[in-house]
């Protein structure tokens, strides 16, 4: 089998993994050393594929042979699909040659379970060792921890790579048992916990001995599949928050389920991936990480799913009108962050500009505030925006997210979206959706 054939098969079977970021590590090589490479903490995307996703790393499987039989996975043992395996050196060569042409930031290494978890992990280590020790490669490497592999192997891998991830796969134990006969929640959480502890210990070691080797310096991430199983947004968001708190994860990724098999345990093969839901979860995740929100503020027992048309922050604001309007010239940073239309950058710029004098609406526009949204929630020097009449319908209309409309339209065109039976039956256009939104929801 040529390297072309292998690359095709092993890319195809790795493409559903979401995490492709190269952030969190900062490294330049020392003077007069052989080799090449550096890592930039903000991460670098080198291209965007036709689906609009960032390509930062060479994301492939070491092999797509797999002993396991996870039902939602294209590589499951029982699936009849072409199989291939890179040798460690083939993959290392490919990485170096892509890297020096500036195609990629490094390698995202994952693998199906070949023979057993230990053997799989050893092959991955071998590839990374060639890169790091033989080619003196200082670029970014993300490795997937293989659940069930020996702790000592995980540790060895951890000292060679920048980031590791253990995928939660599905948002509950029940779904896991149903769909992944060979995996248990325990088998997943154990390596995750191990990595968390080891990363913490290593931080202390580095403080003590400056040259102590670094263990997974860019931290740990995970991902889960959305829409293959019945968990609600509320459950998923709570799980996400728990993972950030308990395991100090750097990122939790969500991946909209794309049907891979006709299986009574899974949604029908004609189901479209729930992209809008995935988008809302990412927005909420952002609110948890950068905006000081807690999961319970965004969803609760009675409201278990996100609003399809309004993003979670706007939705929160509409339900807390008693806190608004806030005076832009006085409000704290934390409160500014909660105003729809003001993001992290514009909130910081408002604080900066206030040092030089008080702000009016014209100034806010220059600073980058989206007045179309923010105007309902702020005053400037005690005044509401001129000509502003707050009626519930135009408030909602102006808060509806463009992305929400386009994704929702797409979804409704693809499948009749039953929860929202506001529309006459028949074909819908984006116009219809917009039209309908003008009516109070």
């Amino acid at each position, binding site marked *: 089998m040529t390297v072309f054939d292998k690359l*095709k098969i092993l890319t195809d079977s790795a493409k559903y993994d979401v995490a492709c970021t190269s952030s969190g590590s900062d490294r330049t090589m020392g003077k007069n050393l052989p080799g*090449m490479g550096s890592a930039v903490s903000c991460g670098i995307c080198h291209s965007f594929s*036709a689906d609009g996703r960032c390509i930062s790393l060479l994301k492939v499987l070491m092999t797509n042979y797999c002993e396991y039989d996870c039902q939602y996975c294209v590589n499951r043992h029982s699936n009849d699909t072409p199989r291939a395996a890179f040798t460690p050196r083939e993959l290392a060569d490919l990485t170096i040659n892509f890297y020096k042409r500036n195609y990629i930031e490094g390698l995202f290494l994952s693998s199906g379970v070949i023979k057993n978890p230990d053997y799989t992990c050893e092959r991955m280590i071998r590839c990374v060792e060639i890169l790091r020790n033989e080619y003196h490669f200082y670029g970014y490497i993300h490795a997937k921890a293989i659940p069930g592999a020996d702790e000592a192997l995980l540790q060895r891998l951890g000292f060679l790579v920048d980031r590791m991830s253990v995928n939660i796969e599905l948002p509950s134990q029940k779904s896991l048992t149903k769909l992944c006969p060979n995996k248990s929640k325990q088998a997943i959480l154990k390596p995750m916990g191990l990595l968390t502890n080891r990363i913490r210990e290593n931080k202390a070691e580095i403080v003590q001995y400056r040259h102590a080797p670094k263990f997974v310096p860019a931290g740990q991430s995970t991902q889960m599949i959305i829409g293959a199983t019945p968990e609600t947004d509320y459950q998923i968001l709570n799980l996400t928050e728990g993972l950030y708190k308990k395991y100090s994860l750097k990122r939790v990724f969500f991946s909209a389920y794309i049907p891979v098999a006709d299986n009574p345990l899974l949604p029908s093969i004609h189901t479209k991936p729930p992209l809008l839901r995935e988008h809302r979860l990412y927005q909420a995740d952002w609110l948890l990480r950068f905006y000081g929100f807690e999961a319970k503020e965004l969803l609760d027992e009675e409201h278990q799913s996100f609003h399809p048309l309004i993003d979670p922050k706007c939705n929160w604001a509409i339900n807390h009108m008693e806190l608004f309007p806030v005076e832009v010239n006085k409000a704290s940073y934390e409160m500014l962050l909660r105003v729809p239309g003001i993001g992290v950058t514009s909130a910081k710029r408002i604080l900066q500009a206030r040092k030089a004098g008080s702000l009016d609406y014209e100034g806010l526009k220059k600073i980058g505030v989206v007045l179309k949204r923010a105007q309902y929630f702020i005053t400037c020097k005690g005044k509401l925006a001129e000509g502003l009449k707050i009626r519930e319908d135009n408030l909602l209309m102006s808060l509806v997210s463009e992305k929400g409309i386009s994704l929702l339209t797409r979804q409704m065109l693809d499948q009749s979206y039953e929860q929202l039976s506001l529309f006459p039956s028949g074909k819908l256009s984006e116009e219809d959706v917009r039209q309908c939104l003008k009516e109070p929801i």
Partner: protein
Amino acid sequence: MPQRTNIIYEYDGSFEGFLCCVFESFEKKELPCDIIPQTQEQMTLAPVREITTDRKKAARVYRSIERKMSVSARELIELSFLTCLPQKERDMLDFFYLGYHYGRQVMNRLTDPTVDRLLKGVKHLTNEAHLTKEFLRFSTRNGMLVAKIGPKNNVLSLIKDHFATRFPNETFLIYDCKHHLAFLHTPRQSGIIPVEDIELEQIDEEERHYQRLWKLFYRTIAIRERYNPRCRMSHMPKRYWEYMTEFQEEEPASPQMETIASPITPPPLEMQNSAPKPKIE
């Protein structure tokens, strides 16, 4: 601020030359209506004064920025000079007047039209520099890595260190065909040099091999069910595509070999439609 006159300052196009224009304006207590580099063709009836570059004057103005304003003001001025803002020199001169007046507070005056324009221009520049780091592509030609870029702003000095620290042991060249500059790096020395035009050497069989593998990877990694050309375009504007390997037609390799049947299967139809028109160099 003094009265705006109808005089035009003409300088040699260097940063130091521009600083001498600032010197002139403060010394003569006059505001020129424009400041233009000599290279720029200008049809005008307004009187033009040629400002000669004097290193000592330039150094005096330069030192004053940090002293009277702040480090970040100095950075803003230096970066502004690399932008493609129309009449940037005029805005930059106005900024000096603001800066001497308001001192370090000048950087907080985000709603001032001059400060706002410069900040936006610099943001455009630094964004473009970042995107260039991402989308630039090298190809090996005669043992050297070569990349061609066509940025709107003069980004070369902002990206060179990134590549020099990443590939210290390689010999490479980044050629900016819009500003006619190139950054040449060898393991021993490196620097920016003016370049009129560059004739690229042909690629060899190994280079072609990796270009094909990359194109294959690029096509395969996309998930058909999530096809979203609008999203791709907003992250990766079309004007970068013509310099990117994954969108280029295959170059003939030398020495000429029997053509090998392309092992790449064509992408699904709907994706093909979005493929850019290939540019041939």
